[in-house]
C-alpha cells in the first residue's frame, strides 16, 4: 500500500496546528491579553515575527492561542454531533423501516432544512454570543450529518452474515449495534469527523464575522480575521496572517481526512487529493 503525498501534507499541516495549540499552553512570545495601543499595526519583524494587531498585541502569540480556541470549538462541536448523532443513526439502522427510523430520518431532514447561519444567529441572540453557544450552533448541524452517515453505513452491515450469526446467537439489537456495528463503522466516522472538524473551523470564522463566536479577550482566528477586515488597506498582514492560518489548517485537515479514507479503504483509493 502506497501512502499518498496528500496524506503526508495533510498530516504535517494538521500536526502543525495541534503543536501550535499545545505550545500555547506553556509558552507564547507575548501576553495575548496585554494591549499596547502605541505599538499597533507593526509589520512583521524581529520583535514581532508576524507583526502586531490594531491593539498592539503580538499576532504570532494570538495565532498560537487561537489554534487552541479553534481546536476546542471544533472538537466539542463535532463531539456533540457524534455523541448524539451516532447513537441515533445506530438505533435507526437497527430498526430500519420502523416508525422510529422514520421519525429520526424525518427529524434529520427537518434540521437540514433550517438555514444554518440564521439559526446560529438566533441561538446566539437568545443565549448571548460566546464560544459555548457557537459550539451548540455548529454542533446541532453536525447531528444529522453523523446520524445519516452512521445509519447508512450500519444498514449495509445488518445484512452481513456475521451480524446474522450474532442475531441467531440471541444478542439484542442494541448489543449488536454496540459490539459489532459500531467498531465496523468507526473508520468511516473518523474520516467524516476530520472533515466536519475542518468545516467547524470555517463555521467559527463565519460566525465571528457576524459578531458571534468566541468573545474577547480570548483570541480566535475567526475574530482576528473579522476584526482585521477593515485594516487590510492599512496593514495587510493583520488580515492575511489569520486568513492563511485558517486556509492552511482547513486544507490540512481535509487532505488528512481524504488520505485516511484511502488508507482505511484501499478499494476506494482514488488517487491524489
Amino acid at each position, binding site marked *: 500500500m502506497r501512502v499518498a503525498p496528500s496524506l503526508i501534507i495533510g498530516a504535517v499541516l494538521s500536526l502543525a496546528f495541534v503543536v501550535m495549540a499545545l505550545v500555547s499552553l506553556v509558552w507564547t512570545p507575548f501576553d495575548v491579553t496585554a494591549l499596547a495601543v502605541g505599538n499597533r499595526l507593526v509589520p512583521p519583524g524581529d520583535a514581532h515575527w508576524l507583526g502586531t494587531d490594531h491593539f498592539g498585541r503580538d499576532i504570532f502569540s494570538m495565532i498560537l492561542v487561537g489554534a487552541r480556541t479553534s481546536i476546542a470549538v471544533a472538537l466539542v462541536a463535532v463531539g456533540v454531533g457524534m455523541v448524539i448523532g451516532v447513537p441515533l443513526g445506530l438505533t435507526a439502522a437497527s430498526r430500519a423501516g420502523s416508525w422510529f427510523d*422514520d421519525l429520526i430520518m424525518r427529524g434529520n431532514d427537518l434540521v437540514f432544512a433550517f*438555514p444554518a*447561519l440564521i439559526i446560529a444567529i438566533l441561538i446566539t441572540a437568545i443565549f448571548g454570543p460566546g464560544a459555548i453557544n457557537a459550539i451548540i450552533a455548529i454542533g446541532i448541524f453536525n447531528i444529522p450529518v453523523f446520524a445519516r452517515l452512521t445509519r447508512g453505513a450500519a444498514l449495509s452491515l445488518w445484512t452481513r452474515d456475521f451480524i446474522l450469526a450474532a442475531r441467531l446467537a440471541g444478542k439484542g439489537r442494541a448489543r449488536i449495534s454496540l459490539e459489532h456495528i459500531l467498531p465496523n463503522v468507526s473508520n468511516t466516522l473518523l474520516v467524516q469527523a476530520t472533515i466536519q472538524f475542518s468545516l467547524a473551523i470555517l463555521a467559527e470564522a463565519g460566525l465571528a464575522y457576524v459578531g458571534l463566536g468566541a468573545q474577547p479577550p480570548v483570541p480566535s482566528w475567526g475574530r482576528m480575521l473579522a476584526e482585521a477586515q477593515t485594516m487590510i488597506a492599512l496593514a495587510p498582514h493583520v488580515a492575511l496572517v489569520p486568513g492563511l492560518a485558517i486556509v492552511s489548517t482547513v486544507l490540512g485537515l*481535509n487532505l488528512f481526512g481524504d488520505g485516511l479514507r484511502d488508507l482505511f479503504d484501499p478499494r476506494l483509493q482514488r488517487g491524489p487529493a
Partner: protein
Amino acid sequence: MTRFLLCRTISLLASLLVASLVIFLVLEVLPGDPARFMLGLNTSPEALAALREQLGLTAPLPARYLGWLAGMAVGDFGISYTYRVPVADLIVERLWVSLPLALYALTLSTLIAIPVGVLAAANRNGLIDFSAMGLTQIGIALPNFWFAMLLVLAFAVNLRWFSSGGFPGWQDPGAAVRALTLPAIALALPQASILARVMRSSLIDTLDEDYVRTARAKGLTRGQALWRHALRNALIPVVTIMGLQFSFLLAGAIIIENVFYLPGLGRLAFQAISARDLIVVRSVVMILVFAVITITFLVDIAYALIDPRLRRRAP
C-alpha cells in the same frame, strides 16, 4: 403507490407543522422587545404600550401562533413591525435579488466544476488531476468573507471593473448582472470546488462499472466511453448535490450579501433579527424551510415513480 403518497404527504405536513412550531417558540424566547427597539431611549411607557397594542403583541401566545398559521395558509404573512409593509412584499422583492444570485452562482459553479471534474477524472492520478484537486481543496478552505473582500479590493477598488456592491435593480439588466457578478463568483468558487470533487469521484466510479468496461472492451477509446456512457450516469449524484447547494445558496448568502451590501433574503433575515422584527424573521425562515422540505418531498416522489423499490424504506 397511493398509500405511499399518503404517508409521505402526512409526514410532509407534520414536518412543516413541527418546523413552524419550533420557529415560533424560538422567536418567542428571543430576548428583546420590538416596540422598545422602535421607540428608543427616550420613550415613555404609554407610547410603548400603545405601540405594542398596535403591533398585536398583546394577544395571547396560542392565538398569535394560530393567527400566523392561518394567515400563511392564505398567503398573508402579516405586516412587518419595522418596515410597516406586508411581509410577503418584502420577501418577494428580496427574492428578485437572492434567486438570480443563487442561480448565477450555481451556473458559474457548474460551468467550472463539470469540466474540471471530467478533466481530472480523465487524467486520473496525472498532473492535471493532482493540481485540479489541490486547487479545489484550497477553494473549500477559503473563508468566504475573506475571499469576497479580496475580490472587492482587486476588481472594484484597484481595477474598477465592477462596482464594490449594491444592486441597481432590474430596469437595466446589464447593470444588474454586473452588480451580481463578484458576489456570484465569491459564492460559486467554494461550491464549484465541492462539485468538481463530486463530479470526479462519481465519474471514476462509473468508469469502473461493468458496462463501461464492456464498452471499452468493444473497442471504444477511454474518451469515447467516458462521453457516451459514463458521463450521463455520473451526473446523477452531481445533480443531487446541486439541488442541495441551491437551497444553501438561497439562504446562506448572508455574509456575501453583507460584504457586497446586496438587498437579499439572507440580509433581510439578519437585519430583522437585530431589529426584532420577529414577524419577518419567522416568515423568512419558514419559507426557506418550506422550500427545502418540499423539494426533498418532490425528489422522493420522483425517485419513487422511477424506481418502485424505493417506495418501501426497508433495506
